[in-house]
């Protein structure tokens, strides 16, 4: 690619043609403040913090949207530019609640940090009017506080550009503008799929997860309750980040120890029911293939994805596997199978999940998810909420020993672990389906074609003469691409499609550390495959606890009990919700 030479703060620099001035400056180690820029995702020039002086320009252009040009002379921190930035920040602060001390983002807020970096010590526009938009806590997973919004548009860009959902956008105009669902609908009535990708990029505390730590603390403090916890595959490679460990560091044993310290009666693993999901789902696939069922079958373990297809592709719902997600299989079994085994009244059991996901909060609350006769999963915590509990309890993860999960619902294989990465469910399913279908051991356990961060991946696996064609998509925009093709009849030769709502899969979920970027995702995926590699067992159907579960309790895959406890149905939702009444 052609390059361009320019000067930034008296430093000559040569960069590729399409580079922005902001990036060119960064390549020189010059950091220009910005509150809205997200590389390639949100380059809209909204906040105007990144303005610079360009020789010959009439005004101060925003460096995030300004392409470099030959011979350009840029100054990033002249007195005029610095004064303007400071005043822009004052303007933002004059329309912000400034409740930093009690804000969920206290200490992790980009606005707070910018005010500090730029040395803003007064707001000359204080005591002028402020927008008054009510908090929207209608959603079971995601809460909006528009008063804190600084209009960076990152949530809008991510919701539309990464997820293809377009649940939120600017409504009204000028000073009254609010970033909200169309018609200012409550989030719960909108097409929001609760994926939480918006809150990962929110620079302030305007969007955040519903914090449910209080009900967990209450359950733990109640001696009458038997509190069990399950941890999702993807949380073990991210929990360490809040304690200073690099992304992707597996902290499974320390996490188990930490949960015991918090006072959980049993510490179990969602990887166990991930294995179970694989057994049910691959049998479902083989059954559809054998009996002329609807193909391709599509995975259903990602609740954001499930709500997405319910809103936008209702007619394709028959493609969705009826198998519940690992979280919900766990809940259903905890209050039936485990309750029986442990001799505990299911009414006294509180099932807590630790998930990388905000949509899991919604999933646990779905009316279909009560097959144990109780609400199967009582409370869903995101990785961040668990961090909050550990910090409040004074538990330093780094100083804990490694401990083992409790049996039997804590026993798992590497196939369960890789659920956390895009392509993982597919790989795990193929490991099992191949052996169930052919009766022969799989020659190569690692199925690398379905791994990695490419948006849509595909593979063909030879089932002893039967080629099985599969597709993998992550990020709902890519899922939409596949659904459009499926609708148009272009995917009829495929057998199985994995869809994960969030980019990178669950390791990039909306419940994960704020500010997750592609590099974090890559390293966490590496961590996940390291966990898989180090497991003795790597195929779900070889999990001894799963084998015993079928023998002692469920009978057989897709059997009557499985059907009742482990499978579900779906709801048709509108793609264009409007205000009713």
């Amino acid at each position, binding site marked *: 690619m052609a390059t361009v030479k320019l000067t930034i703060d008296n430093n000559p620099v040569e960069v590729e043609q399409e580079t922005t001035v902001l990036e060119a400056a960064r390549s020189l180690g010059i950091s220009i403040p910005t509150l809205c820029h997200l590389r390639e995702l949100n380059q809209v020039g909204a906040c105007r913090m990144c303005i610079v002086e360009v020789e010959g320009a009439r*005004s101060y252009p925003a460096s995030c949207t300004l392409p470099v040009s030959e011979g350009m002379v840029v100054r990033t921190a002249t007195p*005029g530019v610095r004064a303007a930035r400071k005043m822009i920040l004052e303007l933002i602060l004059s329309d912000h609640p400034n409740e930093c001390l009690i804000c969920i983002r206290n200490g992790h807020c980009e606005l707070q940090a910018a005010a500090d970096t730029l040395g803003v010590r007064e707001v000359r526009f204080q005591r002028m009017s402020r927008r008054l938009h009510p908090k929207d806590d209608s959603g079971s997973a995601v809460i909006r506080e528009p008063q804190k919004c600084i209009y960076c548009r990152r949530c809008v860009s991510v919701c539309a550009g990464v997820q293809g959902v377009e649940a939120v956008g600017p409504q009204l105009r000028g*000073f009254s503008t609010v970033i909200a669902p169309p018609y200012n609908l409550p989030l719960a009535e909108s097409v929001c799929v609760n994926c939480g990708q918006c809150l990962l990029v929110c620079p302030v505390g305007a969007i955040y997860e519903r914090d449910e730590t209080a009900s967990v603390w209450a359950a733990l403090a109640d001696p009458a309750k038997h509190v069990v916890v399950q941890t999702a595959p993807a949380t073990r490679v991210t929990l360490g980040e809040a304690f200073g460990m690099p992304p992707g560091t597996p902290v499974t044993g320390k996490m188990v120890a930490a949960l015991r310290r918090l006072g959980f009666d049993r510490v179990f693993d969602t990887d166990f029911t991930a294995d179970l999901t694989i057994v049910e789902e691959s049998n479902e696939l083989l059954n559809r293939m054998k009996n002329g069922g609807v193909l391709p079958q599509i995975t259903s373990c990602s609740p954001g994805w499930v709500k997405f297809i319910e809103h936008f592709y209702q007619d394709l719902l028959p493609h969705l596997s009826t198998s519940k997600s690992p979280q919900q299989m766990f809940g259903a079994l905890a209050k039936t199978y485990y309750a029986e085994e442990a001799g505990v009244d299911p009414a006294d059991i509180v099932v807590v999940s630790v998930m990388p996901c905000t949509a899991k909060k919604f999933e646990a609350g779905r009316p279909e998810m009560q097959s144990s006769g109780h609400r199967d999963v009582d409370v869903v915590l995101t990785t961040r909420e668990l961090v909050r509990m550990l910090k409040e309890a004074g538990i330093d993860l780094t100083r804990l020993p490694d401990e083992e999960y409790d049996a039997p619902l804590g026993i798992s294989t590497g196939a369960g672990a890789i659920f956390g990465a895009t392509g993982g469910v597919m790989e795990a399913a193929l490991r099992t389906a191949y052996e169930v279908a052919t009766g022969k051991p799989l020659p190569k356990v690692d199925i690398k074609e379905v791994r990695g961060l490419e948006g849509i991946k595909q593979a063909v696996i030879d089932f002893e003469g039967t080629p099985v064609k599969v597709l993998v998509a992550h990020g709902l925009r890519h899922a939409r691409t596949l659904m459009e093709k499926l609708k148009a009849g272009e995917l009829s030769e495929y057998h199985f499609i994995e869809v994960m709502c969030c980019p990178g899969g669950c390791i990039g979920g909306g419940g994960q550390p704020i500010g997750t970027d592609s590099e974090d995702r890559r390293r966490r995926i590496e961590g996940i495959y390291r966990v898989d590699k180090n497991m003795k067992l790597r195929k779900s159907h070889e999990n001894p606890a799963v084998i015993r579960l079928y023998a002692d309790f469920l009978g057989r895959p897709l059997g009557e009990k499985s059907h009742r406890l482990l499978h579900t149905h779906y709801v048709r939702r509108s793609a264009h919700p409007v205000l009713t009444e």
Partner: protein
Amino acid sequence: MNTEELTKLRHTAREALRLREGQLPTDGFEFHVLVCGGTGCVSSGCKSVRNALVDEVTKRGLEQKVRVIETGCLGPCNLGPIVTVYPDGVFYHKVTADDAVFIVREHLEQGRVVQGLLYRSPETGQLLRTWPEIPFFRKQRRIVLRNCGLIDPLSIGEYIARDGYAALPRVLGGMTPEAVIEEVRKSGLRGRGGAGFPTGVKWDAARRAPGNPKYVVCNGDEGDPGAFMDRSVLEGDPHSVLEGMAICGYAVDAAKGYAYIRAEYPLAIENFQAAIDQARAGGLLGRNILDLGFDFDVEIRVGAGAFVCGEETALLNSIAGKRGEPRPRPPFPAQCGLFDKPTVINNVETWANIPPIITNGGDWYAAIGTEKSKGTKVFALAGKVINTGLVEVPLGTTLREVVCDIGGGVKDGKKLKAVQTGGPSGGAIPAEQIDTPIDYEALAALGSIMGSGGMIVVDEDTCMVDLARFFLEFVQDESCGKCTPCRIGTRRMYEILTRLSQGRAQKGDVDLLIELAHVIKNSALCGLGQTGPNPVLSTTANYRHEYDLHALEKKCPTGACPMRIKPAQARK
């Protein structure tokens, strides 16, 4: 229709219009009675005048002798409703329905001019029979408005009779696209929407830009308070805009045009749509125009009332079905415009200039105006001036000529204080500068802008704080809300101005206001935000003492500001 048929049609149409040039009719008609039907005259009751004329003509059995024609806007809005009787061109003003009946009986039947409805010259006290004699029209040069008020906008024939659709066949029949662009470049025409970018350069950029298809867009989202130049052209001479767009389509290789017209202009939309339909039916739009192998069609998009949609990138977003918000430039629309394709977007007035430029040549146009500002400009003259309305003058005409000669001077014998050009994006030019010739550079040097053509005359009774507050109220209300400086900054400016006007100013308010104005001007995303503070910047530069009086002594020198809230009350 092919070119031969067009020539034939032009010939017939000219015959029918001879009467309006004072020549003998050949079709039996003896009178053409033109009723100004512009939105301004509609407000003052021209519909009942027209109906009365038609009824009376019918009642008296004069249908074979008298044609009553509703035209677009002629310009002098404060004189409306206006009726002009041809072949003599007798100009009647402030006509009522009763007057109309009288005109039929006296003038059309008896041949006696109705003296009482003639315009009396304020200079000499004489009655003036025809409109070109009226001072309001004397210094005007009507190129854009060449047909406005003189033809029936719903008749393609009348447009053709007056050299309409003469430029298009010339372009399609014998000019290369490059030659067309060269002619426009030579004319020196600059964008009439306000920014004044050279039109030929813009077309050339779009022609050279890679990407297909390309688009041609007409910006008809005129929104400056009090400005209605574009509305009048769309209402009164829609074909001139269509023809300009088609010529550009040929020059830049575009087959599709969009006209974005605000919903508040129902008559403009109606007349423009009628023009599209007629042009299509006549083979002047659509496939294989005039059998010359060129395809071009135009569609209307109705704007939903946001001022910011007049900003070109916001307008293009709006056409594409997205929220009407500006986006950063570059890339400019010529490279990446509508649907991310190369697009020429020009304002209504710019388009209406194109056919005469092609017909008469770029050099002809370039001979009018100043060194850097060629041609004419239409202004909507308003405020404290005797004659209000639409005027078109050669660039280089002084503000004094427009305000005093055409406008007749300040109302009620008051003293002139300033002239605000460029609407909310412009500035107040003090009376001392009234001899400034109007061109892009001269107005910018005085802290204002040419703008799209709003011109508001400000007299000595006007408070400059109040004036600035009026415009900032507008700007903050019309901000799209995308970038911080405009969304919050213009709101804060408005709030400080309100404090000043209510006697609640705080220490340092005026300096804070000015500092904020500079920051917004330098940092806002789009042209609207960047020019939004201009009313404050220009008035604080020239009338700082008025601001200080409000701030320090809590007094409004003109009494325009309420100043009702005492500082003691504000502190509570």
